[in-house]
């Protein structure tokens, strides 16, 4: 197995990036593969355990995220909203998405699982609505109890119960009256079984098992495939159709899986997952920091950040609906606004208060996500634009360029003295970053950032800054070629049509889907996803139906 969680894939994307950017990669951030760390002196007992060679390895037992836990409980029992809120937050290991496959159960979370299982089991038997929906026969009849245990167990564990398990839970069920002494022995039994199943590792982990790697090549069995698809696309357990497909061995080839994935993508909950991906990949969290100075930008409404988030979600949803991909995300000639956002686009509101509507930029004055008020104002200071962060987003998040943190002292160094003080943000930024220690990376960052200088800190279009015409032209190396652009439209075209950006976007999707950083072994797969250009839903379909997705990672066996 690859022992270094390093960036060979990164190599695919980053080597191009490094050649193009001129950024010194020797101080690259983002990789944990800093090589073996010298051990402490052998004679000294140390309170600090030795540093592991590797942070994250491929796992066969993926713990449900807190969100997945809650969704699964809801889908199983119809109760338990908010049950995961008090769970200990998972340790941050720096993985960029919330889908990490490296989640653990420590001495804090273990007891919380017990408390949660007891709570939802009690809620379930007390809720007539939930109970009757889930238990259709008379639970006091032994046959009904056995039937319910089979059905519920198969959904809780996402596979049929083994005979031994069935026996175990039936036995527990029959002890309900003795152990709970409630009014209804049948419900007491149900409650015990729910408590025990929700604390079982078969519920809390998604196991990626193959029966025999030497015979099946490590291919997951049908139920593990169904679970993996379902938690990838729904963040919850498989729906009835997916279970049925697994039960009838209709998840064995890519075609059959693709059929299921197409069906799943048409469900509302799949849409939520696609939006979750973009909220993280495009960093919607940054909208929370939007705070233009109202004395400078009187049109900026209260809660601009909250509105920007809704607008961005609507935009991404529209791109998905139109079967768009990365190109559309970056170049579609429309945006969403409510009454309060519209003036920032220079548009008179068309809809009554509170409604959202689409603004079409018929003459191409704005195109794509990067020219919308949300991105522009989230990457701005209170009173002026922030071309560095706008450009950094393009370089890091869209092109996967490895841009290290500024060198020591860089942010504390005052700009050099000049006879003529800078007139515009662009001139000021050029002065500040023109020093040799900075210019390597900032050549790339600034060029991409300056392209958006025609939009101020509140996202309004402008031709002048301090009465000086804004300059949005520049040149950027992309796909290994130095390309000139005259303004933001040409820049986003360049980016949207580049292989670099497609590979970067696909690598984010793949990390999101797998819950781990990529390794060299993922490169061929990634290359297939980057070329030709795929719509967002097609990309999901390609990932989910790839043989790699349903084959478990080769592991050292112990």
């Amino acid at each position, binding site marked *: 197995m690859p022992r270094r969680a390093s960036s060979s894939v990164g190599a695919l994307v980053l080597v191009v990036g490094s050649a193009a950017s001129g950024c010194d990669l020797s101080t690259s951030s983002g990789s944990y593969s800093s090589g073996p760390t010298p051990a402490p002196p052998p004679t000294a007992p140390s*309170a600090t*355990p030795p540093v592991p060679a590797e*942070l994250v390895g491929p796992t*066969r037992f993926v713990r449900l995220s807190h969100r997945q836990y809650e969704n699964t409980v809801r889908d199983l029992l119809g109760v338990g909203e908010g049950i995961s*809120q008090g769970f200990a937050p998972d340790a*941050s290991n720096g993985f960029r998405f919330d889908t990490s496959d490296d989640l*653990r159960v420590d001495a804090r979370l273990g007891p919380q699982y017990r408390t949660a299982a007891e*709570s939802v089991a009690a809620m379930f038997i007390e809720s007539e609505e939930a109970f009757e929906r889930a238990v259709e026969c008379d639970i006091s009849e032994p046959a009904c109890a056995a039937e319910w245990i089979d059905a519920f167990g198969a959904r809780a564990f996402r596979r049929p119960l083994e005979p031994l398990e069935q026996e175990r839970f039936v036995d527990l069920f029959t002890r309900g009256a003795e152990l709970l002494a409630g009014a209804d022995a049948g419900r007491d039994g149900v409650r015990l079984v729910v408590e025990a199943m929700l604390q079982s590792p078969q519920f809390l982990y998604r196991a990626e098992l193959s029966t025999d790697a030497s015979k099946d090549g490590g291919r997951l069995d049908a139920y593990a495939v169904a679970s993996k698809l379902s938690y990838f696309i729904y963040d919850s357990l498989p729906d009835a159709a997916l279970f049925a497909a697994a039960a009838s061995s209709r998840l064995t080839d890519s075609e059959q899986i693709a059929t299921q994935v197409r069906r799943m993508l048409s469900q509302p909950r799949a849409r939520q997952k696609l939006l979750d991906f973009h909220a993280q990949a495009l960093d919607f969290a940054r909208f929370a920091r939007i705070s233009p100075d109202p004395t400078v930008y009187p049109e900026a409404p209260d809660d601009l950040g909250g509105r920007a988030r809704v607008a961005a979600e609507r935009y991404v949803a529209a791109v998905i609906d139109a079967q768009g991909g990365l190109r559309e995300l970056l170049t579609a000639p429309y945006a969403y606004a409510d009454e309060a956002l519209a003036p920032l686009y220079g548009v008179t509101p068309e809809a009554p208060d509170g409604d959202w509507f689409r603004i079409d930029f018929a003459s191409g004055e704005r195109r794509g996500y990067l020219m919308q008020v949300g991105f522009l104002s989230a990457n701005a200071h209170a009173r002026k634009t922030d071309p560095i962060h706008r450009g950094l987003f393009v370089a890091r998040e869209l092109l996967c360029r490895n841009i290290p943190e500024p060198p020591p002292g860089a942010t504390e160094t005052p700009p050099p003295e000049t006879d003529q003080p800078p007139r515009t943000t662009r001139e000021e930024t050029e002065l500040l970053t023109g020093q040799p220690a900075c210019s390597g990376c900032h050549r790339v960052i600034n060029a991409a950032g300056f392209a958006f200088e025609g939009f101020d800190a509140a996202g309004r279009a402008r031709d002048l800054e301090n009465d000086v015409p804004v300059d949005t032209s520049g040149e950027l190396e992309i796909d290994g070629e130095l390309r000139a652009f005259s303004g933001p439209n040409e820049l986003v075209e360049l980016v949207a049509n580049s292989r670099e950006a497609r590979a970067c976007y696909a690598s984010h999707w793949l990390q999101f889907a797998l819950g781990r950083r990529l390794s060299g072994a993922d490169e061929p797969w990634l290359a297939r996803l980057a070329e030709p250009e795929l719509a967002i839903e097609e990309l999901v379909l390609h990932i989910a139906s790839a043989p790699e997705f349903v084959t478990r990672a080769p592991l050292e066996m112990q």
Partner: protein
Amino acid sequence: MSPRSTVRTVSRRRFLRGVGGVALGLPFLESLAPRSARGSEQLAPKRFGVFFCCNGVNAARWFPTGSAGELTPARLTGTANEPLIPYADKLLFPRGVHMSPRGYNRDGGQADDHGKGMAHKLTAQFAEGEGWLAKGPSIDYVLAERINPGVDGARRPPLNLMVGDYRGEHGLGYISYSGRGRAVAAINNPWHAYSELIGANPAAGTSTEAEDRILRRRQSVIDIVNEQFEDLKRQRMSGDDRRKLEAHLSSVRDIERRIGETGLSCASPGAGDAAREYASSGVASADEARVLGEEAYADIADIQLDLFALSLACDYTRVATMHFGRGAGGPTFKWSGMNHEYNHHKLSHGKVRDNCFGDGTANGCADVPGYADMLFDIDRWHQERFARLLGKLAAYVEADGRSVLDNSVILYTNELSDGKAHSYTNLPYILAGSAGGYFAQGQVVALGEPANPFSERAPHNRLLNTLVNAMGVESDWFGAPEGTGGQTMQGGIYESLLSPSFQG
């Protein structure tokens, strides 16, 4: 009592109003201590606590006046530490300590000065990656694995509490690490913290018959869960996966071990009073917006500190941390006589914006007039909180006749020293409590060059190592391994901090 009500924990609303708190919260809090803590093990275990503040201090008015020597109350008068005067004879001020690995990028590693201040302070490890996460565990995790209740391989983790938000850019909201790159989010919602403590014994206070039934039921459920684990363990799996499942299973065993521990009393009789006071002040909201907002910041801080004290007094944990969030951020103080316009980080630089450094006023970096006094008020408010915590711990008398504070050492530490300069030298440190007689008390001790508190002769990794030893865990070195770039790091302990009977 019907089975239905016995499994219910205190409802949020009752907790919030503090009404049910008296009826339901009290017996729980009084019954936290495991039976074993009073019997076979030592009567009064040593405890370790951390009180962590961010963004540095107004260094001109924080330290005791004068140089090394006895800490008289007069030396604290007029400083931010004046609220600690009642405990002056329990305090030890190590002076001239610097962070190591150092800041200002002198020793390398990822992260800016704030990132290093947060990631290095309790770990003495370098930060790495885009998350600026520490490369090794923090002292609270190292100690909990050795001294907390439980058995080796399954000891309870430290109780990590905070006020504010741990989320945000980079690792600036974290101080604790369970291992390399594993930043632990502290509990910022007092309801969740409270639930964790009472969750240990949710059956307490019910009838004997119902209690007995709950115990048998839980045992029966856990028996099944154990069998389900055994099934899984028969699968072939990698060593990593096996360890992951074993760690999970040991948390189940911890539950099992504690199933019988209902209806016990706290070892410290004073804890009952504390719980009463706590319940009547239980005004915290479990509502996330309130927890992350600033309106309830001061109230939440106090409740967290009360839970901190109770958890140590009742031996729920022997290692606890409290962290005022967060590096390069923090609240805008509008309470206790303060009515600031700018948040803690901006004031630490004396500027109206966050990304200003130094004295220049270009780029909208206007000065905040009077910021130094505002910082002093913030520092003093934090030290009032510290005094409150020490007061609680000093009030609990243990079976050996000493107070919980005497048997503990609570470390005051800060992300930076002088916030405006992002300085990593001359760090503000206080050790409160003697850790059962290990540390000297009522002293200011110059560890670096007595005449120059800014020297780099006294690295903080050695102070952390001293604290590890103080808890009875033998260690010669703490933090990043030698030779990995921490040029001023040292092994060994600071003997001059020890009480005369412990000095070599």
